């Protein structure tokens, strides 16, 4: 029985599929390739991959559709490949349930790092780390306490709710809309300014260098990501 993690690549460019096949194969992954979105949706069902890599610019169906179809039945990590000009589509893909993205052109080390995060996350999900560790701060989500340099610090209820929402999707990109709905409620999905203000407060309280945050990461134009300590 093949115990290697399986990676599904949904990408129409044969040259890109080839170099992914080579480099992912060399890293010890089993690679399944689909050249169209429809094929990819079917392959995701039959091969049950550990991670799916989906190109946003597919010839037959939208990459976002592929993400949506997979999400209907599986929580498998989905990494999207997007071009710089596809910012809007990227947001849709996250809305549809994508976990992460890599912008084309990319170096293989970048993609491998994302795949490792995705696999680790898939293994860990459900166990749930209840204490978040920053350089000099910790947040205990269960006990609702926070410490910085050993001293207790105060987080407001909204700040707790916000960091808990990010922690539920640790290492994943969470869109503005999703965070607003989870923390403030569906009526506030458009109130991005709330997020800006509270994220700044969280960074000021928790990040060692709020200007260059290591954990409370801004995905510009898309949302935020809580990067776990060991993914950096």
């Amino acid at each position, binding site marked *: 029985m093949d115990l290697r993690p399986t990676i599904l690549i949904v990408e129409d460019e044969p040259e890109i599929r080839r170099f992914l096949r080579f480099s992912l194969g060399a890293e010890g992954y089993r690679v399944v390739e689909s050249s169209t979105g429809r094929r990819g949706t079917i392959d995701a069902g039959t091969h049950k991959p550990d991670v799916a890599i989906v190109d946003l610019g597919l010839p037959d169906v939208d990459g976002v559709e592929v993400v949506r179809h997979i999400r209907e039945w599986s929580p498998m990590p989905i990494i999207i490949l997007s071009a710089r000009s596809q*910012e*809007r589509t990227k947001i849709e893909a996250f809305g549809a349930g994508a976990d992460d993205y890599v912008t084309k052109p990319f170096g293989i080390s970048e993609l491998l790092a994302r795949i490792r995060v995705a696999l680790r996350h898939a293994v860990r999900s459900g166990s749930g780390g209840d204490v978040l560790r920053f350089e000099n701060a910790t947040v205990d989500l269960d006990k609702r306490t926070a410490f910085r340099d050993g001293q207790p610090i105060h987080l407001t*209820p*909204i700040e707790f709710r916000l960091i808990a929402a990010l922690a539920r999707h640790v290492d994943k990109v969470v869109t503005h809309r999703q965070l607003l709905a989870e923390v403030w409620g569906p009526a*506030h999905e458009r109130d991005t300014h709330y997020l800006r*203000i509270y994220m700044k*407060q969280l960074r000021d309280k928790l990040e060692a260098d709020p200007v260059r945050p290591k954990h409370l990461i801004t995905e*510009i134009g898309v949302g935020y990501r809580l990067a776990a300590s060991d993914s950096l």
Partner: protein
Amino acid sequence: MDVRQTPTARDSVARIFKARTNQRWIGYGWAVAATVASTLVGFAMRGRFDLVNIAMVYLLAVVLVALHYARGPAVLTSILCIAAFDVLFVPPQGTFTVDDVQYVFTFAIMLTVGLVISYLVANVRRQAREQAALEVAAETERIRSALLASISHDLRTPLAVMSGASSTLAEAAEKLSSQERQALARSIFEQSRDMAERVTKVLQMTRLETGAIQIDRDWTSVGEVASSALGRMSERLASHRLIVELPDDLPLVKVDAVLVEQALGNLLENAAKHTPAGTVVRLYAKQRTNDLVVSVEDYSGGPSDVDVERIFQKFAHGAIETNAGGVGLGLAICRAIVRLHGGNAWAERVPAGGMVFRFSLPIEQPPGVVERSPGPDDGLAPDYPHR
């Protein structure tokens, strides 16, 4: 690559055409207004001046309208003026009859002057239009050739490196040491990444110019934009000494975060490219009355002969041009992006030696923040957002 007209030149043509339709109606309005005004002046002059001088006032009205508007309004002014002059001033007043043949002469002169001037003005206008069209063509041509030149240099060189290095790997890999193979592979990677970025910039500029980019405004924190841009440029700025000064109380701005991040990234990239390693680069933001100014300043002791206006134009490398390459679009893109947002981008020399590149973004008052979430009361202190 399709290089379109620059917005400025295209706008000027559009402006002329639009102006023409609007001015037609405004022109007729002014024809009436000028006649009324001259009539009032005429009444004021009556008794103290000869009739011929009152005729001169009407003539002046005809000249002014003819100068500013097309032939139609000029002819209308002539007719109205003649009618008013005749009915109100030429004896017998209150009638349209003319006793003295010399007034017929006055009318003829008035009409002729109106026609001649409007004809001359129309001519000049047409020439101006043709000139503007020529300028558009010339500008398009200039950009096209600059683009071709820059493509042939900026893209051909990395392509040559890539095909040379990759063919060596494909055909003679076994004769190379593993370090050499790695070095070749790495240079292919770096060159291709560079090239992708240049192509992206050319496309971006084209999209900005043709209006193909829609801006998606939302409340944005300049701090987050700066963090993101700094993160993206961290490799390139690794050998520079970076100082970041962002005040805690910067207001949010309603902008397209993705685009503004690019604008700032381009300024940082520019500093990384055009100043020597070890240079101090300072990124800071300041709030003014109606806008927020983001600046990237370098203390390179840099060139004093840089044309601070020209460097924001497409394909204009500063005098500092080294082999650092780049399509020379970064600053032009930055400016195009902030102008789309109602801001501006400019450069200044730093007295101590160096350059500062700035852009401004207008500030609006953000809506209030709901202090309580709709969730269950969890007995903790309410939230007081800091601003």
